[in-house]
């Protein structure tokens, strides 16, 4: 067993708001091994994007530890941080707003190289050309501006930019959710090819369970800032244990008319993440909720390598 590339321990990210503390990420733990993909799923507001951004220091962690290659990087110095930028990158969700409209394709891809001050001009040009080819952007787009391109091509720019400094670890924040299905499939395949070629490690944040199953090795299901279930991808889909994961899974409309998927009804909507009560956060919508759920929930290994945070998990699943 190799040491994990990234380890996150008790990570917390709170935001101060007028009405109290917003617990965006609350006590999250996980590890990702080199060359693997961790999928993070959940609905809007569950903290999945905040988690990715906190790991990359786009946001400062409130508490907890982030270890990269065994080294604590929770509070890096400026110099350490700029070195980390070579190692860890991000692909953003919206290929429309994450690109500078006044920079051409080549300028955008070259930007990280320029900022790193480690390459000569010709080197940067060669590398940009190479990257454009890698992500499938024809050379004629060298001087093109983002507004002239469609969503799929823009996302390719975003991917090329993330790869510019040769990172080991990439946070993919809903990279395909703004794209049409046929383009989405092209981009997903590109990302898998890149991972194979370059031994990249991904943290893939998405709300789309079918995408996450397709691309991930391990999956975290998040609800209101907390991890409710964590398991290997196949295991999670075969043996879904947490009531929220079950509801989420049953809610996906399946493009198969013979699929017999009974909708697990979940009443109500996501509750507020501001000053949450100590008990289970899913309680208000959970069909199995009882008094026991008012106590803080612990994440437990219910089956081998399958962790669930639900006090009634064994009872519900007859384990």
């Amino acid at each position, binding site marked *: 067993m190799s040491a994990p590339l990234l380890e996150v321990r008790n990570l917390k990210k709170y935001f101060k708001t007028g009405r109290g503390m917003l617990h965006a990420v609350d006590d999250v733990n996980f590890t990702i091994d080199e060359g693997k993909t961790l999928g993070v799923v959940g609905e809007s507001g569950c903290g999945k994007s905040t988690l990715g951004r906190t790991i990359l220091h786009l946001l400062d962690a409130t508490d907890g530890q982030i270890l990269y290659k065994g080294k604590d990087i929770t509070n890096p110095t400026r110099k350490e941080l700029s070195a980390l930028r070579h190692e860890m990158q991000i692909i953003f969700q919206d290929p429309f707003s994450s690109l500078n409209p006044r920079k051409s394709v080549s300028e955008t891809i070259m930007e990280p190289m320029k900022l790193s001050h480690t390459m000569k001009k010709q080197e940067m040009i060669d590398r940009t050309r190479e990257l454009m080819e890698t992500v499938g952007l024809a050379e004629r787009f060298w001087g093109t501006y983002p507004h002239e391109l469609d969503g799929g091509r823009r996302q390719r720019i975003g991917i090329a930019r993330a790869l510019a400094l040769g990172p080991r670890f990439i946070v993919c924040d809903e990279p395909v959710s703004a794209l049409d299905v046929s383009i989405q499939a092209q981009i997903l395949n590109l990302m898998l090819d890149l991972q194979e070629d370059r031994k990249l490690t991904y943290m893939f944040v998405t709300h789309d369970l079918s995408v996450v199953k*397709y691309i991930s090795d391990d999956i975290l299901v998040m609800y209101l800032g907390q991890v409710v279930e964590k398991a290997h991808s196949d295991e999670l889909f075969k043996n879904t244990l947490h009531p929220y994961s079950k509801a989420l899974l049953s809610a996906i409309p399946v493009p198969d008319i013979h699929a017999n998927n009974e909708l697990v009804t979940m009443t109500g909507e996501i509750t507020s993440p501001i000053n949450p009560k100590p008990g289970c956060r899913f309680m208000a919508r959970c069909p199995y909720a009882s008094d026991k759920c008012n106590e803080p929930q612990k994440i437990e290994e219910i089956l081998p390598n399958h962790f669930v945070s639900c006090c009634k998990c064994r009872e519900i699943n007859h384990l």
Partner: protein
Amino acid sequence: MENKPIVEIKDLYVEFHSDDAIVHAVNGVNLTIREGETLGLVGETGAGKTTIARAILGIIAKPQGHITSGEILFDGEDILKYPEKEMRDLRGNQIAMIFQDPMTALNPIERVGDQIEEAIGLHNKITHADAIERAMQMLELVGIPRERYFEYPHQFSGGMKQRVVIAMALACNPKLLLADEPTTALDVTIQAQVLKMMKELKEKLNTAVLMITHDLGVVASICQKVAVIYAGEIVEYGTLEQIFDHPTHPYTIGLFGSLPKLDSTEKRLKPIKGMMPDPTLEIQGCKFAERCEHATEACRAKKPEIYTTQDGHQIRCVLAGKENA
């Protein structure tokens, strides 16, 4: 026997003119929606789905948008010939639309109840008090307590707002509901709730629905008929079973191949190569030929005719009925 048609679109063409080009958004579309039927109109961004719905409702953006030819028969009458005043009587009354984004479809400075009441008051000869009562009933119908009549849109969550928009659309008991990606902006669990509700309401009110979506999963869960649209043309039309069990047009097959499936273990998706053609170009032959692996010279030379199987499955492809039908 099939039900009576509510709306029949015949050979519809819509163009948008810009300074230096003409965008051919809808190119000879024929579609029929029957009483109580839900027709899924599936396609990618820019395929012309929303333009068709807007043409039915008579709200194509002017002056750049033009319906250059075709007929839209609603209850047997060509509504493209209607003067604006008569269209206004139909709109929101017999034909209603649910827009994609519930965040922008509501007026932020008007109470939600009043926004529903407005449509009711406009189209029915009833007193204000009765209209309010009916608006409250509509709220209850979509699962919102009537007391919330007096609240403003910002006090509602996304799923609730979409329910309000649906209540507004159904307030006058329309014969035809145009639903333009009604659940795309919602989270999956909320989407499931809204779809379930729409299905129940549709059965209760027997409304015909044109369900515009890019999500084949949504189609499978709510529609009876499916039309697949590509670059402004219907390339395949059939019942839910025909499309899902026997997709025949290479584009439809490509769409299914592009979807990651929950129950399969395949390691790579089979995406469709390339992109949709530039809508400003006039293409002689099949619009999908550039991306199609079966394309031949014949495909590029002439627009393929519709091939119809014995049980009414329509495919616009020269290969249909030749090798595997």
